[in-house]
């Protein structure tokens, strides 16, 4: 991997001057046949790829109104040009949303429009060749499909739609991305992105139960494959093993326990994440989420609750009903799916949780709106609930809360830099540079208000920030950013929630001693 410099954090955001082709070399590892084939794609670049790519484009134009309208409608007004975090972090003009779209639009015009067929130079149309394919592969993997540009476009042109179409065309001709396709193949084989098999999952959950009991003195359960439970929890598999995700999972368990509701995790559908969306493949997205429908029917649950994850919540909230509905086998009195934040917030509103906010007094929090949650989903029954509900939870469990610059939150939030299938080490440079706009806003509240923690509700955000925060420490200066600044919203809930009958002090020590004695026997 090439060396690169971490961008300096400026006091005020500055729109960079263009520097051509700085990120031209950024490309993720190419998928091998064993990654592509389980998804129904050719193993490697196919014979006659050019015609096949054009045919696929035609197919997609007929299937997706958005694509057709967006490729026609752009007037090159420039409104989006300074809105992408990857452009702001890299200065590469091809990371301006419209320029990224134009990589595909130029080919669309050449093959599908009158002007492009007869006057290509006039309208910026170009032939499809191998160089274009390489350029697509590079720059459509420098888009996290965060939709920030679509907020500001006067026609709502959504670069995510363009980028998904481009990736699907690439997959169709055998040029897949290793990271996404390998993971999807794992879901088909094992049931989750991490390839965590059922026995390992069972052991992890038992360990967590033990941990929670040591901390509360109560047998809080994380049930697996329990038939007839009321709720099936679908959560990103990172929640089962990664930090700080796992502390969020403990939080969900504590909330379910206190609510006195029976719930279960499914080993068959042990993944909320759905990378089928990243590669723009309706069929793969549907196949992946069908596991969830099957598990819900198989376990006979009444409700589905969804853990903290951004793109997965988009698939669940916006697409599940389309892909794997109708949900006539579930309890119609609850939304399908329901977000864990909606579930917890409901209990807080009804005053059913005993909260000790001082447990979080050692922290000063700020909240990062995850791009997919903010711009592609909702929580609660009012538009904007996706902003208000997580904040209401944080404020209910913490005394110290600070907002970041409003130009970088809610619908205008910046992506963490690792979304859209870019959360892989072979893309470290674009991930670090793309995190810069968020880091500038975070740096500001760290400097001005002594913020100690960044609360997230997305598995990708949590992993990405844990990894890239340390990059932004200045050499020689005292360390300002560390990976443990990143916390799950439900980790905060976990720390402040006092369970009915929870043990403290000597009583807890005695309980733990008894647990250890029992384990030794």
């Amino acid at each position, binding site marked *: 991997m090439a060396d690169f410099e971490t961008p300096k954090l400026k006091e005020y955001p500055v729109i960079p001057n263009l520097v051509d082709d700085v990120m031209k070399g950024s490309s993720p590892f190419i998928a091998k046949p064993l990654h592509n084939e389980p998804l129904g794609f050719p193993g490697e670049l196919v014979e006659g790829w050019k015609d096949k790519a054009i045919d696929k484009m035609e197919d997609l134009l007929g299937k997706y109104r*958005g694509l057709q*309208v967006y490729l026609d409608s752009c007037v090159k007004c420039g409104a989006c040009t300074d809105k992408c975090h990857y452009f702001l972090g890299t200065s590469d003009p091809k990371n301006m949303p419209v320029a990224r779209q134009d990589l595909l639009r130029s080919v669309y015009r050449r093959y599908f429009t009158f002007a492009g067929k007869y006057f290509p130079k*006039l309208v910026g149309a170009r032939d499809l060749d191998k160089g274009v394919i390489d350029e697509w592969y590079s720059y459509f993997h420098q888009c996290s499909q965060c939709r920030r540009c679509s907020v500001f476009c006067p026609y709502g042109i959504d670069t995510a739609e363009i980028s998904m179409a481009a990736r699907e065309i690439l997959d169709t001709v055998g040029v897949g991305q290793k990271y996404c396709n390998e993971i999807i193949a794992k879901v088909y084989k094992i049931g989750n992105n991490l390839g965590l098999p059922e026995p390992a999952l069972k052991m992890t959950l038992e360990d967590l139960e033990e941990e929670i009991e040591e901390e509360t003195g109560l047998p809080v359960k994380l049930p697996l494959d329990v038939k007839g439970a009321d709720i099936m929890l679908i959560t990103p598999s990172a929640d089962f093993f990664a930090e700080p995700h796992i502390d969020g999972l403990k939080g969900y368990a504590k909330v379910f326990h206190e609510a006195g509701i029976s719930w279960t995790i499914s080993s068959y559908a042990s993944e909320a994440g759905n990378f089928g969306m990243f590669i723009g493949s309706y069929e793969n997205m549907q196949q992946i989420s069908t596991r969830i429908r099957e598990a819900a029917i198989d376990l006979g649950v009444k409700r589905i609750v969804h853990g903290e994850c951004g793109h997965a919540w988009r698939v669940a909230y916006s697409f599940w009903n389309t892909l794997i509905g109708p949900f006539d086998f579930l309890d119609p009195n609850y939304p399908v799916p329901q977000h864990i934040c909606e579930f917890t917030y409901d209990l807080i509103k009804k005053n059913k949780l005993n909260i000790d906010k001082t447990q979080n007094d050692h922290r000063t929090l700020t909240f990062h709106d995850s791009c997919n949650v903010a711009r592609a989903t909702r929580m609660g029954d009012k538009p904007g609930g996706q902003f208000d509900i997580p904040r209401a939870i944080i404020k209910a469990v913490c005394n110290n809360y600070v907002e970041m610059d409003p130009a970088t939150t809610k619908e205008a939030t910046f992506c963490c830099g690792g979304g859209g299938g870019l959360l892989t080490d072979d893309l470290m440079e674009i991930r670090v540079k793309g995190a810069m706009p968020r880091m500038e806003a975070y740096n500001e509240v760290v400097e001005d208000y002594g913020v100690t923690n960044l609360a997230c509700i997305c598995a990708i955000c949590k992993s990405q920030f844990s990894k890239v925060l340390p990059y932004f420490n200045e050499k020689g200066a005292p360390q300002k950013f560390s990976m443990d600044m990143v916390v799950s919203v439900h980790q905060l809930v976990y720390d402040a929630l006092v369970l009915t009958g929870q043990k403290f002090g000597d009583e807890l020590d005695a309980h733990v001693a008894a647990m250890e004695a029992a384990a030794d026997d």
Partner: protein
Amino acid sequence: MSFLSVTYILLFYAATIILFVGVGRRIYKYAKTPAPLKIPTMPAPTTKVGVAARLTREVVFFESLFKANLWTWIFGWMFHASLLIAFFRHLRYVVNSDTFLIGPVIHWHLLQLAGQYTSFTLIIGLAGLLARRIFVDRVRYISAPSDYLMLLLIIGIGVTGALMTFVAHTDIVALKDFVIGLFTFSFSALPTSLLLLLHLGLVIVLMIIFPISKLLHAPGLFFSPTRNQVDNSREKRHIADWAKPLDETRGKS
């Protein structure tokens, strides 16, 4: 009737057919292509009335552009609003001041008066957009020759129009006869004025390129799924015709 008049008459009919058939076909294509997934840019309205309000705000006020960039918004909105007023002012070549629209709906004299000066705001708006295209490096980077030519074309229409209003008047009575003749098929000659010929010639070009250019943003906005969809995916199953058969094949394979 002169050869020139006949030529313009034929061109007007051809341009009108191209405009309406071309845009109509495009709209038909947009309408029949399904949007298989719910992708409104959130927060989005949860009712159809809310969506109508959102689209109205986009069409009338350019809401998203306002959020994005104040200069582009000022110039863009100024240009489009001027164009709308110019359109109404030009109604005087088609209808009389005593038709049903006039009076209660449109204040005729105010319109004619304001319409004279909107040629300036139209030109200023377009000049601003052109300046951005030339001087802002990001906008210059994304501009193709056609993007400049489009602005120059409409500036040309505005400038020739303004010149006829303020510098070299044309015979508007004869012009009205010519225009009404186009609608009633009782043709009369086009007044010979170089400015008028230029003005109308450029309008004809604009009509012809409309359905094959980025001017399709006008119908496009109404078909943009990020703007025209209702946020109700949990309550109502949304499925495209092409995706329906997939319900049967989904699952263990």
